[in-house]
């Protein structure tokens, strides 16, 4: 019998267009196949530095995103009560004129009355700059409710963070320890890296209450109790110190361990001791005398005591050698047996020191000392939200950096490597800018790194400049703002009322807010005069998300394949440790609706408002649209949004004049550009002069910025001093005690806030997003919702059995501030005192063009209703990390009771009236 003939070489498509994915924050390169002008297939771009050809479940489902029925179709103006979903379509001219009519008077009279917050924005260097031109101090993106503890703790300690700003040296590492990440950030790069380790049999250790995803493949799983990671890490440090298994040479040369801590009582106690030139100094072992910290040939003495002042090293050793940090003292609290902690410490020490190796790469350090090789220590770490979304998350992340430093494994072969423009010390970052004046732009960028109380955004009367109270005594290092507090604060008029709330891609009436049901009320609440308490809300989104119903004016955005975008070194690039990288998006298909790319709309608004930088002196537009801005905007002389193909001939890298052909060259190059770190500069970057010089040439900073890692954080000590009563700028009394604890200059662990109020709520409750929906704006995606269309609360065996749960049951879950009734499932691979669920699967009925009977909207649920945005007690103190203001999502404590089978999850909200028709068949 003859076999049928199969066409094995069919034509795949008419054309492939290479752009950048936007299904999450990884920003992978994609090949978009087009047939007859339609997108027919999307795959990873093999040449792209982020994903090297692979693509995740979201990326490969992008085709369903471009055709989703939930896409908004035209600008909308609210015509019924807010939240009713009654809108009328209007023209763009009307929409923009309306926005200008609202915003122009604000700019002229009180620019702070505009609160402009962007959610999953990937153009923050632009949106922030726009807000700066407008003159409002009220701008940030979503980092405050995401993982600012990671960013800030890393920056203040090693000059770079986990997040995606660095990565393990996948090629050399032999032991990889992952804290607080099972499924998410960053997605494909971590998967590619774990795949490399697995291929060569290197060891992966997962520290996480939940054993899914990366923890499922971990060779060892440490099922820690939420909120105790910092204690576990400090106990590991205790073991390493006790055994003397620390990299003394590394500590002496590259960290502030040999600097002296001022021991004199008074306003400078605990600050780093400075010489007459205001420079820190070390004691040179060769002479026993003070010597410059960066002097050639100096051998800093870690054990020095000089005029009664001891080194940072001694303070550190004294603290962590304390029996308080012995494994036996922390085991119960962490839910990890002491023997396990000791074994992990031994494994870290064995790999770091017994498997050390030399890379024969000669280099010269900032002191001018030449080295013939680089010492590799093949232990690496990564961490994200699991450890940082707690009110002790900043200190926990700092503790993890200290552990890496003690092992001598940051920026060395085999260890954790930063990606340009990092490493970058705090001193090379701006401080926050916040002084608003009528009709004037802000004097600099909103977000920055505070050095001391003098940088706080506090007015002379002691009230905050910012609506989110960023950079105040409540959260001094809030480098990403506190988006989760904007609506509650604006509603409470604390610190003041705003007029217009302008949001982009931020689902604040649903899964991006704590206490979502209350936030919906805040958005619709009226004052005595019958006006909305938050008078005006402008919202831009591409899809009919839950937030749309709560806005007064909708500016519909395009999907990611219909737009220009700029993934810039000025904010959040796509660098690799060996290369700086940036990228663009470009319209690979034209939008078939009356929608516009949000960034181009902002520019248009800027011209209509006459904003400086955006408008020519004659009132005309400086930039035609966002694409024009990407090419022609000049941030500093020679420096613009993109580093590649600069200069009139397109040959310049990093610095150069605008090149009118720049975008064409990017498109030709696959949508991205890479500037490669030169040979010999790939490791030891903070101290490696070859790297420093390249970094200056490539425009990351204007002069070399070598620095020492901060084991002892002087900016933190300055806040502690203030809390102790020193200095002119003083915190309010109710915050003194917590500042003294939280702003400890050495990493410290304290129980997550709210423990006292959580008595009677013995169970920890946490969330994560599934890999197939991580950071995604597309959980309504036709393919992805077939994978995760419903979420359960996963219960550990202990609770499952104790409460007599059975399949099909629901549970009543109660926190000190809320109650939900939700479907449950049993999961054994889980910390015995923890329950968890997939976040943001739950949808509100009527949103996202889904059927009102959709499982997401009936059985699906959010934990957000259980989480208060405020801490218990007097006053309005946000439920956030006291250092950075990161939303403390994972401090949640609950009680779980069986209620048997139910029809649907509670609370149930009314069906949102539709702003787009319900989706039916696939387009």
């Amino acid at each position, binding site marked *: 019998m003859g076999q*049928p003939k199969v066409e094995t070489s069919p034509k795949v498509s008419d054309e492939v267009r290479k752009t950048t994915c936007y299904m999450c924050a990884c920003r992978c390169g994609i090949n978009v196949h087009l047939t007859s002008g339609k997108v027919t297939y999307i795959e*990873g771009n093999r040449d792209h530095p982020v994903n090297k*050809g692979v693509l995740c*479940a979201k990326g490969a489902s992008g085709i369903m995103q471009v055709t989703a029925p939930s896409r908004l179709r035209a600008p909308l103006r609210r015509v019924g009560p807010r939240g009713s979903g009654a809108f009328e379509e209007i023209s763009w001219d009307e929409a923009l004129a309306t926005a200008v009519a609202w915003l122009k008077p604000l700019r002229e009279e009180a620019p702070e009355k505009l609160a402009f917050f962007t959610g999953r924005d990937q153009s923050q260097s632009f949106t922030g700059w726009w807000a700066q031109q407008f003159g409002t101090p009220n701008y940030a993106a979503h980092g405050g409710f995401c993982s600012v503890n990671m960013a800030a703790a890393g920056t203040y300690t090693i000059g770079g963070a986990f997040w995606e700003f660095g990565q393990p040296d996948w090629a050399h590492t032999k032991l990889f320890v992952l804290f607080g990440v099972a499924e998410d950030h960053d997605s494909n790069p971590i998967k590619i890296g774990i795949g490399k380790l*697995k291929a060569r049999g290197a060891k992966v250790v997962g520290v996480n209450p939940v054993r899914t995803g990366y923890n499922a493949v971990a060779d060892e799983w440490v099922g820690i109790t939420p909120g105790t990671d910092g204690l576990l890490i400090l106990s590991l440090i205790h073991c390493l110190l006790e055994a*003397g298994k620390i990299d003394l040479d590394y500590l002496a040369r590259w960290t502030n361990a040999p600097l002296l801590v001022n021991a004199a009582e008074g306003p400078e106690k605990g600050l780093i001791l400075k010489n007459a030139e205001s420079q820190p100094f070390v004691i040179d072992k060769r002479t026993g005398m003070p010597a410059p910290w960066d002097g050639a040939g100096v051998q800093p003495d870690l054990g020095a005591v000089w005029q009664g002042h001891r080194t940072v090293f001694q303070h550190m050793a004294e603290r962590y050698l304390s029996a308080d940090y012995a494994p036996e003292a922390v085991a119960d609290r962490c839910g990890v047996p002491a023997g396990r902690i000791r074994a992990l410490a031994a494994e870290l020490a064995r790999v770091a020191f017994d498997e050390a190796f030399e890379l024969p790469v000669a280099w010269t350090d900032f002191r001018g000392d030449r080295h013939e090789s680089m010492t590799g220590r093949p232990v690496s770490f990564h961490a994200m939200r699991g450890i940082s979304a707690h009110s002790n998350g900043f200190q926990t992340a700092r503790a993890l950096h200290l552990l890496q430093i003690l092992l001598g494994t940051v920026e060395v072969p085999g260890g954790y490597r930063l990606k340009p423009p990092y490493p970058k010390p705090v001193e090379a970052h701006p401080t926050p800018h916040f002084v608003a004046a009528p009709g004037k732009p802000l004097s600099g960028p909103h977000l920055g790194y505070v050095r001391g109380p003098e940088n706080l955004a506090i007015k002379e009367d002691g009230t905050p400049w910012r609506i989110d109270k960023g950079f105040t005594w409540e959260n001094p290092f809030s480098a990403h703002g506190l988006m989760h507090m904007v609506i509650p604060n604006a509603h409470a008029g604390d610190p003041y009322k705003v007029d217009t709330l302008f949001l982009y891609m931020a689902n604040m009436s649903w899964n991006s807010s704590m206490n979502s049901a209350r936030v919906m009320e805040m958005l619709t609440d009226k004052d005595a005069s019958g006006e909305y308490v938050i008078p005006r809300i402008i919202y831009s989104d591409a899809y009919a998300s839950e937030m749309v119903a709560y806005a007064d004016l909708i500016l519909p955005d395009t999907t990611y394949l219909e737009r220009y975008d700029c993934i810039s070194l000025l904010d959040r690039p796509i660098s690799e440790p060996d290369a700086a990288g940036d990228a663009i998006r470009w319209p690979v298909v034209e939008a078939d609706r009356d929608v516009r790319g949000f960034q181009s709309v902002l520019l248009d608004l800027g011209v209509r408002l006459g904003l400086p930088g955006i408008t020519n002196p004659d009132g005309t537009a400086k930039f035609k649209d966002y694409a024009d801005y990407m090419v022609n905007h000049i941030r500093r002389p020679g420096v613009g949004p993109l580093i590649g193909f600069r200069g009139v001939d397109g040959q310049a890298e990093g610095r150069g004049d605008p090149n009118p052909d720049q975008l064409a060259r990017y498109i030709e190059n696959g949508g991205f550009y890479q500037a490669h770190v030169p040979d010999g500069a790939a490791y030891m970057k903070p101290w490696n002069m070859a790297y420093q010089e390249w970094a200056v040439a490539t425009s990351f900073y204007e002069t070399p910025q070598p620095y020492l890692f901060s084991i002892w954080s002087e900016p933190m000590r300055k806040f502690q001093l203030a809390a102790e009563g020193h200095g002119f700028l003083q915190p309010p009394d109710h915050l003194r005690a917590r500042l003294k604890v939280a702003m400890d200059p050495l990493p410290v662990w304290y129980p997550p806030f709210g423990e006292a109020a959580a008595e009677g709520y013995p169970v920890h409750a946490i969330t994560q997003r599934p890999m197939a929906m991580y950071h995604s704006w597309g959980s309504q995606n036709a393919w992805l919702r*077939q994978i995760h269309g419903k979420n359960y609360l996963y219960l550990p065996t202990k609770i499952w059995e104790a409460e007599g749960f059975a399949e099909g049951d629901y549970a009543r879950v109660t926190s000190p501030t809320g109650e939900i009734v939700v479907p449950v499932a049993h999961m*054994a691979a889980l910390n015995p005192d923890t329950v968890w669920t997939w976040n943001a699967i739950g949808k509100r009925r009527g949103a996202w063009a889904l059927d009102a009977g959709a499982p997401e909207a009936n059985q699906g649920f959010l934990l957000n209703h259980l989480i208060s945005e405020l801490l218990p007690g007097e006053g309005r103190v946000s439920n956030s990390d006291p250092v950075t203001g990161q939303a403390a999502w994972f401090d949640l404590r609950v009680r779980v009771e069986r209620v048997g089978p139910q029809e649907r999850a509670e609370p149930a909200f009314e069906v949102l009236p539709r702003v787009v028709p319900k989706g039916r068949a696939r387009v």
Partner: protein
Amino acid sequence: MTGLPERTEKKLGLVIDLDTCVGCHACVTACKGWNDQGYGAPLSDQNPYGADPSGTFLNRVHSYAVQPTDTAAQIINFPRSCLHCEDAPCVTVCPTGASYKRAEDGIVLVNEAACIGCGLCAWACPYGARELDQAAGVMKKCTLCVDRIYNEALPEADREPACVRTCPTGARHFGDFADPESKVSRLTAEREGFALMPEMGTRPVNRYLPPRKKDRPEEASLLAPLLDIKATGLAGWLDRVLGKI
């Protein structure tokens, strides 16, 4: 009834590494995306935005809980698709000859022109690897991307199944099991790759690599304290530590 080739020249198939699969579902949607526009009828979705969405997938990932007696519970992510069996019961059960195994490479395919959608093959397959497309009324299954692996319109590097090309962890490998030197044969030999449910007598071509042993910390000698810190105090510790430099 349809006959199977006595032998096939090649035995093309997949190795799936269960030690490495993180359960991300990338292979699921890459497969869906390619095959929605590839060989045969598109992979339809029913009620894609409705209360009970369902659709045709040629590859799905399941997660299973495992509870060893002496170590912590585990999750194993298990991708499931056609195993291209040598004794494929789905082929021999087919009343029209639509299901067949290719003599040249062993790929099991459905000739959709001859498929009457009777579903017997899906009943016969012990692995649940076939899905009847509700819109087209024909049986769909993994084709090993027969329209990619030989496709001269694709760059050579891309001539592999979409699921393999996209897998972020590199847990999926494609090759010829008839060649003992191929990557899939070597991986199978080195990592003790196993066939799924061999007792069914279907002689699957695909192999799974088992998860490595977990949660058995090597008997590393624990770190010995340098000295009795309680007795000597910090000063003694410093002397000892710094004496090492």
